[in-house]
């Protein structure tokens, strides 16, 4: 018995617009400046972020366009029409597996950061469990509700991020930004490749667009959503470089965390703003994780149509949790993260592009 149920389980283009940045902005934003500062000169890294962002926008368009061609059809249904049923099922299962791995990696990483900065003595497993239970709760509920949550959380996260950047302008030194455009081409390329990984995650629109009633607006909404992370990353990068300088940034593992630590609110009343920052950051990470988990369940559900969603969640979640516990060191988590990113490149860029080309060549269209 449920006392309240949302009237419709449909979403509009607005939900898609917010789902994309909520999904994309996650772990990567903490470490991105460090990863690109090393291979670029002074503040030149923003060029690479922009470059990678433009490439990503193109793929976002393809991905959303592909899904929008088949309104009200699940991924496995339209993939089956494009590349035969067995192939579609295999790919959907792999997709689900990839997202489950992604979920477990984030759950572990969030717990790690929380342990490092917030709960020093709480066991890691407990932190993971607490976070993951909330994620399970989120994914078990209404799907449209989860997507609407993005509309609420993301602006809050954005405001806090902007405040952190603003309070740091005091430490900003223009000298750190100069000289401009002195980076070698290879440096730009390397940094662009690094930033590419931080833009992954938008592949969820392949699934979520199926919830839309009218899909024409989806590609544009997804692209508008994607410009937000691009802008955020560029601004964060420039502020980080301006505050810490290029060399120091390339040596600080989480520049954004350190930026949050430097915040001094006038009046000397508030110190240690980073705890607030972490709360907000974990909120966005909740969105990312819950959507990743939800889409993987959605993918499984589209293959095993007879199973109930809640049962799929109960079957998969112990595995997700255990895989999250497995790695022992920071290094291992990073290695697994890198491998997941490689899969991400396949599922978010290669696969949609391939399916899109096939749909154009074979002129397969949806019923809509």
């Amino acid at each position, binding site marked *: 018995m449920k006392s309240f149920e949302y009237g419709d389980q449909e979403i509009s283009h607005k939900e898609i617009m917010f789902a994309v940045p909520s999904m994309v902005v996650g772990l990567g934003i903490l470490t991105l400046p460090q990863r690109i500062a090393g291979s670029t000169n002074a503040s030149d890294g923003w060029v690479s972020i922009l470059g990678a962002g433009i490439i990503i926008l193109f793929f976002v368009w393809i991905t959303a366009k592909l899904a929008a061609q088949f309104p009200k059809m699940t991924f496995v249904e339209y993939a089956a029409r494009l590349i035969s049923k067995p192939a579609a099922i295999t790919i959907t299962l792999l997709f689900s597996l990839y997202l489950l791995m992604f979920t477990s990696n984030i759950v572990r990483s969030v717990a790690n950061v929380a342990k*490092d*900065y*917030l*709960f*020093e*003595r*709480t*066991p890691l497993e*407990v932190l993971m469990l607490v976070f993951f239970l909330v994620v399970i709760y989120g994914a078990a509920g209404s799907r449209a509700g989860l997507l609407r949550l993005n509309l609420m959380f993301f602006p809050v996260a954005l405001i806090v991020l902007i405040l952190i950047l603003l309070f740091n302008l005091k*430490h900003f030194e223009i*000298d*750190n930004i*100069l*000289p401009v455009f*002195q980076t070698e081409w290879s440096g730009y390329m390397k940094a662009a490749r690094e930033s590419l990984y931080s833009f992954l995650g938008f592949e969820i629109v392949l699934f979520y667009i199926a919830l839309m009633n009218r899909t024409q607006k989806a590609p544009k909404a997804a692209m508008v959503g994607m410009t937000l992370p691009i802008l955020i990353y560029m601004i964060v990068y420039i502020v980080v470089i301006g505050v*810490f*300088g290029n*060399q*120091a940034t390339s*040596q600080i593992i989480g520049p954004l965390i*350190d930026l949050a*630590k*430097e915040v*001094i609110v006038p009046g000397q009343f508030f*110190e*240690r703003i980073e705890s607030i920052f972490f709360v907000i950051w974990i909120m966005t990470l909740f969105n990312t994780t819950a959507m990743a988990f939800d889409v993987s369940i959605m993918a499984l559900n589209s293959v095993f149509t007879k199973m109930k969603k809640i049962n799929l969640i109960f079957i998969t979640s112990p595995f997700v949790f255990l895989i999250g516990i497995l790695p022992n060191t920071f290094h291992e988590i990073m290695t697994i993260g890198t491998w997941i990113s490689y899969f991400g490149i396949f599922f978010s860029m290669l696969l949609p592009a391939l399916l899109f080309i096939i749909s154009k060549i074979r002129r397969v269209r949806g019923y809509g």
Partner: protein
Amino acid sequence: MHKRRRLVLCGMLLLFLTAGCWDRIDIEERGFVLGTAIDLSKNEEEEENIEAESPGKPKGKTRFILTNQMVIPGTIVEDNSGETYNVSASGDTLFECVREMAARTSQSPFYEHNKILILSEDVAKRGHIPSLLDVFLRDKEMKRSIQVLIAVGEARKALEVKPQNKEMPAMYINSVVNNAYKNLGMHPEVLVGDIHEYLLLDESFTLPRIMSDGDEIKMTGSAVFQGDAKRMIGFLSSEETEGLNIIKNQVEGGLFQVEIEGDLIVYEIKKLKTRISADVADPLRPKFHVTVLAQGNLGEKYAMIDPFDADVITNIEHKLEHEIERIVNSTTEKLQKDFETDAMGLGTLLKRNHYKVWKRLEGDWDRGEKYFTRCEIEVTARVQIERRGTIIKSHGALGDM
């Protein structure tokens, strides 16, 4: 009914999960560290003791004494006053010092509110700064915004001052730096994070100097660090620091005194801007033009002159221009000839504006071939007196005695 019982059971289980916190530390048990001082240990007896207690232990190059200033939380009242106590411990590494300290105090030190780090002259001169700063950057409890100072003599003496207004010593030192807008000879604050950048870039830099005597501290002058050797090579006096501040365009205020007609007049700086342009016609011998533009008021006048006479004012302005040029030249001379260290950021200027030239000079700027010592620095000052005060004369002519 059944459903309800299950809900109650769930609720009770939740109590076990949610109540309690692994990370609870009562505020009384936290030793809030406000300031840290590091000295070299010279105690030989102690070293013998360690040798006896743990003979096989790996030994560092030197032993340090770490002094933490901790505050007693209950005593803090407004305006930074409260009771503090200092704890010192020695060790080969800072972490060892902290561990040693834990054996002596009831409160576990908590560094997240740490404001200042004072290093003794000896520590800096022997080149220990890079290794000592590591923990201040690496440890997640540390902020990158801790202020770093170099003490003349022993560093912990500075934390032992007893300010007249009952402020906590560390907070007192921390707030003295904010007076930089009134004193030209004070070096602006330098943070741990800034030094990280300097050390990574192998840049030469300067840190504020702190001198203490019992009740008071004085924060004029600066310590010069050579970027290649990464150790301190000497102090700049208060006046030389004035020159440094002018060159680096970090003047927030202060005064100049010039002699005119046998007596002094005081010029109060309102705005001072410095522009440096580099002439790289000869890439190995860049020429720097330093242009100083000062605007300010006539603050105090001992000399018997008429401040509303245009000629007199022009005369004063010229005198001031010469004074500024003299101060700046004394600094550049000291840095070029004595220290052979570019702590003025001229290299950074080249890097910013003439990247190609800098790429050639980089390895031989204030190291190797030392091109820095041979480059020409030309100073021109322009001074404007805007206001002359609210009166013309404060007294009649003074008779000769």
